[in-house]
């Protein structure tokens, strides 16, 4: 998980010009780091490329809007890392 977190933290730091040392596993991408939906497209693009996956952003957004999930489940970085690991594992299965 740590390597996944490091990769996405580096992507966020570079994409959004956020100091790398302020990006923690507990950081919420939206609430703590102030990343908006447009910037998140760039991050999703970089994550998709780096891990060879397709983050299901539309599905996640729908689940949050429907009250079936919280933003924390997808946008707190340690949780995002876990979701990415799941997607990578599913791809390799």
């Amino acid at each position, binding site marked *: 998980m740590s390597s996944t977190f490091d990769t996405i933290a580096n992507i966020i730091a570079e994409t959004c010009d956020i100091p790398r040392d302020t990006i923690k596993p507990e950081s919420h991408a939206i609430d703590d780091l102030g990343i908006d939906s*447009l910037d998140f*497209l*760039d991050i*999703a*693009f970089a994550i*998709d*490329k780096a891990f060879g996956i*397709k*983050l*299901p*952003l*539309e*599905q996640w*957004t729908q689940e949050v809007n429907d009250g079936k999930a919280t933003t924390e489940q997808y946008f707190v970085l340690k949780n995002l890392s876990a979701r990415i690991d799941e997607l990578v594992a599913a791809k390799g299965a």
Partner: protein
Amino acid sequence: MRLEYFQLIDRVVELNLADRTIRSEATVPTHSTIFEGHFPGHPLMPGVLLVEAMAQTCGWLVLATTSFGRMAFLASVKEAKFRTFVRPGQVLKISARLEHEGSGFAVARAEINSDDKSICDAGLTFRVIDFPNSEMRQKMRQTAIGIGLSSEALADG
């Protein structure tokens, strides 16, 4: 190119859905009120309209990849470079490649050439969402037919 309708593309000359590429052409009008202001005595095609020509070409490519199931809205333009002036009457050849199809977004690169010279290029990101209404989808399909987008791209009816 019908600037008054914001139709920057005259025709699609090649669409390759397997390679996710498209080529289009457009002729800059010889007369337009735009040239009275940009610039007086020195008419030039505005760079923002060149970006729009690239965006529309990419947009048709995105629509074609979804069989007109979804609409592309321009979200960001990166590293747009304008290398050469474009004058009234010039024929533009626009090409684009879809680099990535994400969940609800698409990333493309596009460039414009004219007389074998590089005019401009940029990276463009689009939000890809359901059509806001069926009328818009129908109008976009009609426009697509008018600019020669292949029947393959319109396959799902």
